[in-house]
């Protein structure tokens, strides 16, 4: 362990480190790279958000007011790709970069140069995704990918250059994620402080370990799927064309073999983070550490074998329908273990409700709605009614906004004082929380009812009976979008200055990361701490 530590500190003289833009381009420091991931994520969160606000504005009233259907179709697909690949995944990777070395007592990530490369692949990919919008303004091509983020063939075989741009963006983002995952696995397996067994390892690291394994298993399948799409488009293959012996449903299998685990890829880092926050603000040890570890693993394994519930209306054979229904339902068990442990951690604690705890509680309740509606969505016969409707849109935004994004916000408020050495504004944080929670429900609760009433998703215009709920949803979405400016401002303020944070930051913290100063030194844990059993 010690020799590895020395080998990883090649700088020697720190005075030689570059400054300015070159520092950020060449940095191999896990904290710098973590900061870049977080900043990139926040920026793309607003880009993806602006796209969907334009969509919600169009849907405010029936009729086509603001945009043509073909542009509407581009916005919904790119919104999803940006939010998933460029906002949520980088945020989780940013957390991993910042926190995993601090939590396990490692001096840096195992593969620092790979780390730098992994980040700098993201901006070109984001540009590839959005460039077709700009090219279309100059009369080149017909805009961005207009097939929804699912890229279903043969619609995507038919599409314009936007599809090719999206395919290459996905390739690059996939390479970046795989490199990040290799790095995280290598760091966790090789660089834990002496005495820290895998089972003792903090749950955040466990959540990420399972995430990284899922990414390495599933991303190559997606990359293969979109490459087959590319060759169908340009090189005369017929993977997804029945006329040449192919099958459009093959694409859906390949896509969702990645796409379903992707949901857990986005959520596992958050589930890993929650016990830390709950334990801190209840001033009580985490309940069921081992049970949560096994739940993460169980969810990871089950997540790999339930993919076809995303296309239960595609006409699968009855045995397949039954298998995918029951296997999907069984995910509720390990998930219930997590809910049980979260609530049991709160039970008989001494709770206080600072902003991270508010977001954690909001996460648990609203993510509960996602989980429960997911359970009914698994039922094949009822799914025939919910599928492709706004019910599904509401369901996965409860999963990915409250489960994913509110989870990330929990982490940002929780760790920001550690990263910057300053306290954020508690008043603004609470205002941000309440505005977010109320406007989120105002936006997405009506969408459940729209779905039940029969409104299909991805339509730019709708029948008159859907008007009221859509109007409410649009009002909610604008409040939700604008509230996030408070979040950005609060982070900015905190980075600039503010009340000094102590090393432990919060009253109930425990773990190696809280033993370092706030902010931690540029190089931390150069001498690894020893964990005594």
């Amino acid at each position, binding site marked *: 362990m010690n020799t590895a530590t020395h080998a990883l500190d090649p700088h020697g003289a720190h005075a030689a480190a570059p400054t300015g833009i070159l520092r950020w381009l060449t940095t191999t420091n896990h904290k710098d790279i973590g900061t870049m991931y977080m900043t990139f994520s926040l920026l793309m969160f607003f880009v993806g958000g602006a796209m969907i606000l334009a969509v919600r504005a169009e849907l405010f009233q*029936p009729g086509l007011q603001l945009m043509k259907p073909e542009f509407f179709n581009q916005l919904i697909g790119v919104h999803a790709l940006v939010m998933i690949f460029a906002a949520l995944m980088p945020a989780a990777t940013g957390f991993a970069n910042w926190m995993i070395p601090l939590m396990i007592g490692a001096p840096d990530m195992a593969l620092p140069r790979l780390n730098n490369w992994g980040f700098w692949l993201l901006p070109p990919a984001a540009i590839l995704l959005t460039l077709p919008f700009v090219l279309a303004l100059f009369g080149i091509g017909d805009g961005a990918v207009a097939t929804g983020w699912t890229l279903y063939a043969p619609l995507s075989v038919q599409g314009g250059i936007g599809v090719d741009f999206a395919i290459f963006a996905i390739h690059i983002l996939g390479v970046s994620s795989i490199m990040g995952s290799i790095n995280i696995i290598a760091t966790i397996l090789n660089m834990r402080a002496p005495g820290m067994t895998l089972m003792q390892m903090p749950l955040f690291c466990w959540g990420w370990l399972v995430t990284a394994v899922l990414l390495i298993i599933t991303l190559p399948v997606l990359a293969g799927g979109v490459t087959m799409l590319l060759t169908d488009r340009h090189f005369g293959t017929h993977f997804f064309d029945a006329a040449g012996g192919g099958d459009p449903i093959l694409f859906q299998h390949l896509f969702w073999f990645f796409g379903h685990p992707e949901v857990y890829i986005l959520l596992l880092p958050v589930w890993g983070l929650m016990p830390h926050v709950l334990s801190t603000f209840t001033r009580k040890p985490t309940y069921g550490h081992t049970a949560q570890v096994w739940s993460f693993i169980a969810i990871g394994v089950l997540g790999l074998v339930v993919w076809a519930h995303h296309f239960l209306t595609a006409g699968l054979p009855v045995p397949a329908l039954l298998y995918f229904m029951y296997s999907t339902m069984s995910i509720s068990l390990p998930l219930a273990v997590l*809910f049980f442990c979260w609530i049991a951690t709160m039970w008989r604690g001494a709770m*206080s*409700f600072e902003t991270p705890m508010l977001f954690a509680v909001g996460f648990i309740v609203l993510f509960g709605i996602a989980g429960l509606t997911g359970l009914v969505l698994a*039922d094949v016969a009822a799914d025939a*009614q919910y599928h492709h409707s706004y019910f599904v849109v509401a369901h996965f935004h409860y999963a990915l906004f409250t489960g994913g994004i509110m989870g990330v916000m929990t982490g940002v408020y929780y760790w920001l004082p550690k990263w910057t050495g300053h306290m954020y504004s508690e008043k603004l944080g609470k205002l941000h929380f309440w505005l977010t929670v109320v406007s989120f429900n105002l936006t997405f609760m009506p969408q459940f009812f729209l779905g*039940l009433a029969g409104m299909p998703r991805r*339509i730019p215009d709708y029948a008159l009976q859907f008007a009221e709920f859509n109007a409410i949803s649009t009002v909610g979405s604008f409040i939700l979008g604008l509230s996030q400016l408070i979040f950005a401002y609060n982070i900015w303020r905190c980075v600039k200055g503010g009340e000094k944070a102590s090393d432990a930051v919060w009253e109930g913290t425990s773990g190696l990361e809280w033993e370092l100063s706030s902010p931690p030194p540029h190089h931390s844990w150069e001498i690894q701490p020893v964990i005594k059993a």
Partner: protein
Amino acid sequence: MTTLNPRARGLYRFFAGLGLTLAAGTALADYTWNFPKPVTPIGRDTLSMHNQFMIIITVLFVVVFAIMIYSMLKHRKSVGAQPASFSGPRNALQWFWVLVPFAILLFIDFVLMGIPAFHAVIDMEDTRTRADMVLKVTGLQWKWQYEYPDSGIKFVSTLTTPRAQIEGTEAKGENYLLEVDNEVVLPIGKKVRILLTSTDVIHTWWVPQFGVKRDAIPGFLRETWVRIEEPGVYRGQCAELCGKDHGFMPVVVRAVPEAEYAAWVDKKKTEMAAAAAGSDKAWTKDELMAAGKAAYDKNCAACHQAEGQGIPPAFPALADSKIVNGPLLSPDGKLIPDSHVDRVMNGKAGTAMQSFKTTLSDADLAAIITFERNSFGNKKGDMIQPAQIKALR
């Protein structure tokens, strides 16, 4: 740390309200908050299962979060709570209480929900037992074609909502976006086996009141079934993103008593015979131009636009088009590959330009081709007869 009592009370009220909203949505069985009134056995099954599941998950939600909210109120630092130090069950009794919720969940998953779900799936997928008739549905960008193999009836069903209503220059009608020129007519009380396919991309045929939704996949047949119990007009939409006008391809089904259905079949057959006769007579150019304009507006204008300007590059312009202004047929009356007639009849693989040979009559094809060659500034001056199209098939 600060005192947070009033805020916590607010939190409590908010979550309680949320629970009530969820409960209200299910218990009232008020159809604006729930599925539209089902009219098939599958639809009724699905609705009652949905209502039952919503009650189950609402109870789960309320019970679980009531415990959490109780804890949030009682176990707060500000009311002097001292933190306990347990991190897992410590004796047999605690293990029992830990395992009870999971036993309940297992029961809910695989008995309470799992058993009715099993029967519903088996019922839904049983498309063949004692089926009375077959309806074949073909999805096309962006309309539906319906075929009745028993009687040979075949027609295309297209949205009739005027552009002016969509663009807001005219008041929207009652059935805005859910109205078509040719409704599918089905007899009530009969088990109709529905076969689905598509000619271009994946579409999904959905009528909410039937509780049935099934993908139409190009190159494959999928199937489902309905037995409509009440006469009426039932409206639905395409549910799978299928390109530009995905939001504009409604499904409208008119369910009628059997005698009325038989009369409709006879009427349709007479119409089809009249249309077939149109292939054999000689048309004047004016007749072709007039019929061509009507057929163009219905079948071509969505992409190539009313004035033939198209939406390049996805949907090329017809005005000044090299293909439209090319030669009509070879000197011996044969099809020229990649010519105007070839495109309209056979489409272009890998693009939204579909083969219209299967969906349009000889007369419509001849009229559209003649119209396009002599409109939008194109002045070819020539024409093609339905009989010539018939010979090319």
